[in-house]
């Protein structure tokens, strides 16, 4: 599902990737015995060139920042997807997701909270919900 990321965030993300030398020859994993936090992969593609790095947990500052941004975008998009879907089928099921958006916004966990506003306006203006 395509969505738009603002130019500022794109610039920030690509700058962080550049700081990480586009993941070329960078070992990002902490290589310690810690719990499995999920396998994360960063991949950079430019024309025929493609580089990638996998890690479980990293202490690298730039990689952590990039990870936070991607995780925030994923979280935000998940909220939008689920609310849009439930709006068509089961409107009453939205309360918990709306609360999650409120908490995420309050804790600055959503990179672009303004993207959710049109959807929230739509819900607010819908007298049936």
């Amino acid at each position, binding site marked *: 599902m395509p969505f738009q990321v603002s130019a500022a965030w794109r610039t920030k993300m690509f*700058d962080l990737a550049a700081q990480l030398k586009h993941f070329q020859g960078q070992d990002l994993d902490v290589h310690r015995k*810690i719990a499995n936090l999920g396998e994360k992969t960063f991949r950079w*593609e430019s024309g025929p060139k493609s580089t990638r790095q996998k890690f479980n947990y990293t202490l690298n500052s730039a990689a952590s920042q990039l990870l936070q941004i991607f995780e925030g975008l994923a979280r935000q998009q998940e909220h939008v997807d689920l609310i849009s879907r439930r709006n068509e089928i089961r409107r009453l099921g939205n309360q918990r997701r709306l609360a999650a958006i409120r908490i995420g916004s309050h804790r600055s966990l959503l990179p672009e909270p303004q993207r959710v506003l049109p959807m929230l306006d739509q819900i607010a203006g819908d007298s049936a919900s």
Partner: protein
Amino acid sequence: MILLAAAQHGVLVYSYAPREVKASVAGHGHAGKQQMQLMVRALLSMNETPEPWMPRCLGGGPVPLAGGTVRRRVWAAGSGHISEAARAPLGNRSTGLPNEIDQPAQLVAGCRASYRRDEDFLLRLFLLIALPPWRLAPRSPSRSADAKLTFRRVFKGSSPNFIEITVREDSMPPPMKSASWTRTPGRCHSR
């Protein structure tokens, strides 16, 4: 003495064996100090690795995580067991304990400091969002127009257990669709 003081002040005390704390936080009960530090850092999204504040109370940071809340007062009681007071959120009330118990106070101070660092991180993220585009770092000259940056996370047992986001750099003219998102919660799959 700690348990008595807690009882006199109506504070609920829960006791966790070190292995229970380690298993909940690091995935196995024999995790080392360093592993616990890294896991606490990972779970709280902290910028710095927290210090183990007391040699016998490795769980000073992890206990709240194991107990299901991150803002409870925590201290060690007895040898080999870690107890948690669950009366009020950190910072809302005084500890309700006699003054001679110094170690809990030190531990609470450590907890406070680490959570402040966490809040600092969130504040910085907020400021980053608030910054206008021209305030962000300049573009790197090495970038090409057709570059794509992809992030993928596979984590069985989490929801969603698979996410993938691809961000395209082509920004002139402003893109209508600059990122794609895939998620697979359980059996569902959308692309």
